[in-house]
């Protein structure tokens, strides 16, 4: 799978908000996933994180005197991490916030509304996770660089992400999926083009595939893209409720 890069570089739409801790948990996880894959963005994120930390250094205040002993005591009774593979866990408030965010995601998915996010003019940067089918590259590039191309992100996709970049003028979209959680033994995801309520299969993913993209054409505004969980090999019609859905505009 080759990564598609525009003339200007890589995805960075969220890196500023990311280093300012201004993203929600799902968006944050998506950025972190990208940073693991993209060295250029990782460097930029590190520089901007350092910059943000400079902002932090401007605020000083003397802590209450008793805090020092509380901290030293707490450390004495806390074991240290030495494993390089250990991941830090957020305790207390962090866990509460994740639980609330997860509940919100379930509610949004149930309402079948799509997160709409449109950009004026050209898409400056989007790091399309594209399956490298050579015969599609020029078509994909045409969509991504089309002046009327818009990005839409499907809500409620757990820690993964499903994105459609749609060009109404070309009646085509690049639908990218990334980090989809395993759907269960013997199951896979299947994509559908929904026009006037009628779904047409765009294909079922090979089992175990969690990242990639597909080119969809003959699309009109108000058509939808849906994703359902099906037995390996796919089904003739989608199993409802859909795993994710978005409506093109």
């Amino acid at each position, binding site marked *: 799978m080759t990564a598609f890069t525009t003339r200007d570089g890589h995805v960075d739409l969220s890196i*500023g908000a990311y280093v300012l801790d201004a993203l929600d948990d799902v968006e944050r996880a998506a950025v972190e996933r990208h940073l693991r894959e993209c060295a250029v963005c990782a460097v930029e994120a590190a520089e901007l994180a350092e910059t943000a930390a400079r902002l932090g250094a401007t605020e000083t205040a003397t802590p209450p005197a008793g805090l020092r002993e509380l*901290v030293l005591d707490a450390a004495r009774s806390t074991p240290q991490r030495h494993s390089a593979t250990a991941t830090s866990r957020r305790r207390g408030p962090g866990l509460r916030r994740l639980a609330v965010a997860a509940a919100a995601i379930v509610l949004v998915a149930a309402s079948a509304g799509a997160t709409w996010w449109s950009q004026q003019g050209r898409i400056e940067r989007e790091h399309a996770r594209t399956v490298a089918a050579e015969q599609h590259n020029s078509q994909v590039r045409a969509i991504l660089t089309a002046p009327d191309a818009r990005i839409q992100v499907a809500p409620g996709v757990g820690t993964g992400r499903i994105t459609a970049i749609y060009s109404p003028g070309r009646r085509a979209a690049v639908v990218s999926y990334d980090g989809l959680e395993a759907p269960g033994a013997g199951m896979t995801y299947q994509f559908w083009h929904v026009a006037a309520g009628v779904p047409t299969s765009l294909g079922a993913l090979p089992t175990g595939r969690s990242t990639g993209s597909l080119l969809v054409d003959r699309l009109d505004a108000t058509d939808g893209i849906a994703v359902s969980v099906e037995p390996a090999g796919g089904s003739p019609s989608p199993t409802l409720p859909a795993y994710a859905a978005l409506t093109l505009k």
Partner: protein
Amino acid sequence: MDRWTRRGALAVATPAPGADPTPETETLAVLVRDVGRGDDARFAQLYDLVSARVYGLVLRVVRDRAHAEEVTQEIFVEVWRTASRFDPARGSASTWILTMAHRRAVDRVRSVQAATVRDRRAPLQEQPAYDAVAEEVTGHLEQQQVRHCLRGLTDVQRETITMAYYGGRTYRQVAEALDVPLPTVKTRMRDGLIRLRDCLGVTR
């Protein structure tokens, strides 16, 4: 006035406020390295050196002393717990600590907001405009530099960044508060940070 702290044959210099930050960078990195090896005397020294910055940042973000105390304690315990994983090649120890501090402070703001029944449309308690703070003439050299560089941003860049960073708000909340589209907020945050980065001379 320099203060020398002795521990056996080793001494750790506490640089005067306003002094060239470079020796302190090395000092903090050494302290964190030693903390990673379980040295609780170094941990106490580290606390003494950075607690005002950590508590100050947390207090600015959470705006409540009780929460700020708790979060500051959590941060230092996390520093103690994960010090062995600090990699000086990836950035300074103060960046590492302040990044952790900011993250936890924002986590606390979000969980308090989630736990409190509150009208979403009610404005969040407003921060004083950062410019007001910037009129302070005195201050640590580093602080003056940051204020100077913030003044070099456009209003939207500065507002989005300070609302998010010091106010603990999500970019959606910032977009709503400033009545600016979501993608614009994200772009301004990024290009504002890039301008700050270049003004402050942050490179890797």
